[in-house]
């Protein structure tokens, strides 16, 4: 029997360490041992242990703690596995309907063991790639229809061909692992859970374009990913999979890791290159494209983590196998990171062509606390909010773009009626204005001015002309900004204005926040009939805004109240309501 413990950042943050020590203690003196694997994507149930029985059956246990882990271990020792903490059929529906290529090793292989990767078929694709050669590799990628998974969806084979065509003594393969899109975490999961898959993809790209050096530009905020990449690279060297004359093919390759230092804009190719050169991550205009003049002014091919993670599968299974999945223009699978107000958040990899509803409701079980869905945000700060009535949109690059959002790196933030769309727009604008590199006027000042207008609107100081000004600024920033960050920065505002104009108008004209979220526009109120006078709210209030006599209804002083919500969190009688825009009594 095997015990696979999900040991990614999220698992660890959820308590995987105490589960591990619980299991290890209980297994002391037995033959059982725990294998640490990456995140299998069922983040909602962390910490998770997958038990694989001797018959090869897989049983998932979730939401474990030390105690329940010991119980699981004891039951395993006894030969009859416990039913406690087993994920329900309903929860396991999360895995059905998924097609895992990128995530196929996550939660399966031991990310800190090259042998584990090789046992699962690792580096076969590299061998095959070396035997078929560059042209055939690019041909297969072309047949596969693979497009860049970082956001823009540029056909991968064109990039590779272009870098291949550039004449130079030196070329570089760069993996963009600067996953900065808030709400997307698939790259982290893959790097932490299956690093070799990415490295193998990069090496195949190296063969294709004629590069001998791979550079992974990874966020410093992902220390575990960095650590596992370093282990992986060392093991590859030891195995002779890196260095000179790999597999006797005459092909040389080596890797460098560079840690990003915290700048979202470095996800943009030219900014990333500037950063790699030790500079401020400020984008430059294209052309020249990196494929002509990139790192050290040499031809450089840049793809993101998920794109590289598809490569070995395509080479092994053939481009047409990949192309058999998906839609006309978008082939293969795509990983989505589900978060927000969704019931079962985590990583989902599905063939292109499903609808958003299929994912949110079919796979992820709908909305938390059985709320009503309002919208799904796709594409992060560069994307947009797709409203409820458009959630049957088929997921591919073109159809998502038509909504005003973008596929982006695959973050899907689910929003319910408690989410204020103006506040969301402000949130993203706050993000992009802070992440703007400061080089071009439209982005540097434009995002700041848009943010200030949104701030005034949520503060109840909006003017009727503000919506027009936002649109005017937004459209101009889209045309005038220098790089992709700026070009797409207005999207969250423009899409929310497009689909949720009524919410903007409520804030501006009625000084009311329909989602009851914007703190300047809401007041907390204790409903006298429901309050039992237990005084708990008053004890929990951090600013002493609630007073009253025990056993009679309490009152909130809205002058003092900081709208922290502690009282609501703690009230056992649902006696506290939030009022917005209504007449205060």
């Amino acid at each position, binding site marked *: 029997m095997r015990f696979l413990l999900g040991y990614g950042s999220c698992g660890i943050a959820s308590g995987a360490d105490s589960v591990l020590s619980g299991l290890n203690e209980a297994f002391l003196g037995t033959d059982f041992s725990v294998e640490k694997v990456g995140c299998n994507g069922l983040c909602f149930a962390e910490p998770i242990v997958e038990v694989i029985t001797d018959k090869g059956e897989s049983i998932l246990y979730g939401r474990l703690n030390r105690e329940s882990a010991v119980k699981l271990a004891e039951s395993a020792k006894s030969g009859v596995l416990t039913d406690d903490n087993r994920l329900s059929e309903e929860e396991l529906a999360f895995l059905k309907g998924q097609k895992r290529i990128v995530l196929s090793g996550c939660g399966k292989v031991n990310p800190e063991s090259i042998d584990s990767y090789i046992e699962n078929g690792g580096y076969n694709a590299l061998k095959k790639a070396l035997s078929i050669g560059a042209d055939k590799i690019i041909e297969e990628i072309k047949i596969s229809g693979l497009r860049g998974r970082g956001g823009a969806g540029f056909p991968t084979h064109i990039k590779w061909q272009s870098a291949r065509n550039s004449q130079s003594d030196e070329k570089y393969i760069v993996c963009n692992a600067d996953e900065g899109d808030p709400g997307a975490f698939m790259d982290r999961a893959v790097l932490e859970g299956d690093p070799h898959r990415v490295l193998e993809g990069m090496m195949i790209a190296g063969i294709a374009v004629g590069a001998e050096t791979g550079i992974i530009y990874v966020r410093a905020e992902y220390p575990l990913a960095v650590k596992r990449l370093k282990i992986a690279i060392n093991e590859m060297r030891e195995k002779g999979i890196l260095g000179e004359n790999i597999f006797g093919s005459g092909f040389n390759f080596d890797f460098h890791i560079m840690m990003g230092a915290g*700048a979202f804009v470095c996800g943009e190719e030219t900014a990333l290159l500037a950063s790699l050169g030790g500079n*401020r991550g400020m984008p*430059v*205009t294209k*052309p020249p494209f990196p494929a002509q003049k990139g790192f050290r002014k040499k031809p450089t091919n840049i793809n993101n983590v998920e794109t590289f993670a598809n490569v070995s599968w395509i080479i092994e299974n053939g481009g047409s196998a990949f192309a058999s999945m998906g839609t006309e223009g978008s082939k293969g699978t795509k990983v989505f990171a589900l978060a927000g107000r969704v019931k079962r958040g985590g990583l989902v990899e599905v063939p292109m062509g499903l609808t958003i509803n299929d994912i949110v409701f079919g796979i992820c079980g709908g909305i938390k606390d059985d709320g009503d869905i309002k919208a799904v945000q796709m594409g992060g700060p560069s994307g947009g909010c797709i409203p409820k009535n458009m959630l049957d949109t088929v997921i591919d690059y073109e159809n998502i773009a038509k909504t005003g959002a973008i596929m982006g790196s695959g973050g899907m933030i689910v929003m319910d009626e408690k989410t204020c769309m103006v506040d969301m727009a402000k949130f993203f604008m706050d993000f992009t*204005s*802070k*992440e*703007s*590199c*400061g*080089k*071009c*006027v*439209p982005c*540097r*000042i*434009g*995002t*700041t*001015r848009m943010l*200030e207008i949104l701030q005034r609107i949520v503060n109840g100081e909006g003017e009727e002309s503000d919506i027009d*000004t936002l649109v*005017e*600024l937004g459209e*101009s920033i889209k*045309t*005038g*900004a*220098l790089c992709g960050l700026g070009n797409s920065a207005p999207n969250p505002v423009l899409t929310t204005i497009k689909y949720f104009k009524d919410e903007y108008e409520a804030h501006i004209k009625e000084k009311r926040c329909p989602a009851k979220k914007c703190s300047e526009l809401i007041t907390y109120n204790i409903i006298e009939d429901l309050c039992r006078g237990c005084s708990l709210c008053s004890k929990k209030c951090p600013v002493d805004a609630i007073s009253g006599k025990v056993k009679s209804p309490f009152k909130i002083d809205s002058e003092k109240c900081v709208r922290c919500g502690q009282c609501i969190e703690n009230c056992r009688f649902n006696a506290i309501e939030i009022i917005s825009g209504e007449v205060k009594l």
Partner: protein
Amino acid sequence: MSKVNIFINGKEYSADTEKSLLDNILERGVYLPHLCHNKELESYGGCGLCLVEVEGIRKPLRACSTTVNEGMKVTTSTPDLEKSRKVALSLIMSDHSGDCKAPCYMACPTHQDIQGYVGLIANGKEREALELIKQDNPLPASIGRVCPHPCEEKCRRKHLEGAVSICALKRFAADSYEDYIPECEAFNGKTVAVVGAGPAGLSCAYFLAIKGYKVKVFEAQRHGGGMLRYGIPAYRLPKNILDKEIENIEKMGVEFLYSKKLGVDFTISSLKNEYDAVFLATGAWRSSSLGCPGDDSEGVIGGIDMLFRVANGENVDLGKKVCVVGGGNTAIDAVRTAVRLGAEKVTLIYRRTENEMPAEPDEIRDAKAEGVEFKFLALPLEVMGENGKVTGIKLQNMKLGEPDSSGRRSPVAIDGSTEILQCDTVISAIGQRVAAEDLDSVELTRKSTISVDEKTYMTSVSGVFAAGDVINKGPDIAIRAIAGGKYAARSIDCYLNGAEVPPELPDYSVNKNFDASVLDGTPVINRCEVKLQDAEVRKKNFSEAAFTFTKEEAIKEASRCLECGCSSVYSCELLPLMRKYDALSMSLKGKSRQYPKDKSHPFIVRDNNKCILCAQCVRACREISGTENLGLFGRGFGTVPMSAFDLPLNESKCISCGACVNVCPTGALTSKTPAVKNPPLPFEEERYVCDLCSRNCVFTKRSIKGKTVKMIPEKLSECCSLGLFLLPVRENLPENISEEHFKVICDRLCGSLGKYEGDNVNVRALIEEKR
């Protein structure tokens, strides 16, 4: 270098592949705005103005970072591109915390170049200062004595020890060169009639004369000056000063016809038939009456009437006790005149408190010193009298009420609290009105003033213009009348030439969010107050009470000027674009940069408030100078160019290569000379070949009034710091410069001699030699 053919706006041109699309477009004389491009620097793409559409490419491209290729079809202007430029410029302006013109300039109704003349005075050039003043103000000696100076209200120095004494400095300049007359254009064949020789009429006549018009001024009184003569007592404005200024206008060819009265000797219609244009400036001469019982008694007199009679040399007997009702400058003039006429007890009655008095605080102070009593919070109820002659005034005592929505506290009566002041004369100085009886054919307002267009000063009758106290809102301060005359003259000139009238004040950048803390650390120099004749002496006669600054006082006072207006206002690249694209009309609000100026360097002033982050300075400092002293710091909205650790330039490793000041498109990095002040004034430019060494670098030499202020190299990368700064230093070095300052200058002059090919250089000698 190879050539290709490209199409710019449909026209075929040969283009150079080595150069950017922008340079190709500009070299072919096609207009394309840009603010971050310099052909000696690597392209940047920051400002986003040079966007063009290229056929076959979906998104607009930045011409500065685009290369040309054969057959390329480029469009430089489409509605979308223009829109995008307008938004980009609006955004730039929203974060450009610069004052093109100083706040004093903006506040003065005539928009005089105050910073300019104050600067010239500080540099010891009071004659040049007066010439500058007279470009905008025909009566500086008079107005320099009586103006309530709204300019000083806005002086940024008010945030420190007190406003610069702008008004007194003007008087100083005017008194030092009283014979100056500006040059007038030759007679242009057109004639204009001006009715009224008050400040508005004199001003209009003066400016029309400069423009070559033949002007006739019709004045009802025996002398010119209007309210300046008859409304302002001689102890404030001696008549000979006014006479001299009128005489100067006469010398410019203006003809004065005295004792000619509208409605008696001529009418508007008759003038209209005779002249190409008519200008009416008849003023507002009727005192408002008190409007209480007894206000028609003998011994009740209008303030302006009393002042008129005194000025006209009439014998005026006010008796021993005089009450003046009102809180404005006329009331103060009346009380102080009453004192001088020998009244023993003079009381000013005002219904609010001293804080609310519209009169100038200095005037109130001086009146108090002369023994005037003030009765605040009192309203006349009745003028008491015996046999129709005044014996006293009954007052209702008041208190200030609750503030209204505008924060103003109106006086309200205290029930049953009244008192009586004994007096022989009651002077009503509560305002003046227009006497409209003689105004034929022009439309009047409900206040019986002449209704004129705010922008053109034209009345309802085409070709008839008006300004001063007689129009729209009625009486105002003298400088407002002068401004009216000035702008009406311009409007008349436009009217007679079929041209459109420009706005009085074109769009300028204004630092709306000025944060006074940026002035922290400014050395304290106390305001030099105007010296007055001792109160006990002055109250006995009508001799002038205040003294003109001595030259020493004037220089010291003028040197207090903070030079708020931008030194690049005449060379700025942003300002014309801002106007062309009407970039202030989007009126975007929000946070904006507020940094202290760095004036530490002897030749370079860094004012990051005006920085538009084109990064040309940073690039020049790296690519041309190789110093890498300036770098970009921070990111996003807060990005700012500075030297490492934000060291003041003079303490940084700046080598004074001058590249930054020559690439900056705004006033964020400017050069300065060692003169006390560097007033921004229109300049002249000429080609200059440097002879300091055999390189013979070519410059454009920029000079103001014959003094070199800036050297602009033809090629940034070729000249040395000596070539750039020696001439401006040598020609502007103040006589009394400290040895310490001199040494800094010498050191900095040798900052970057890398390109200098001459012998060892003794900078000190070089400066001294040709001084």
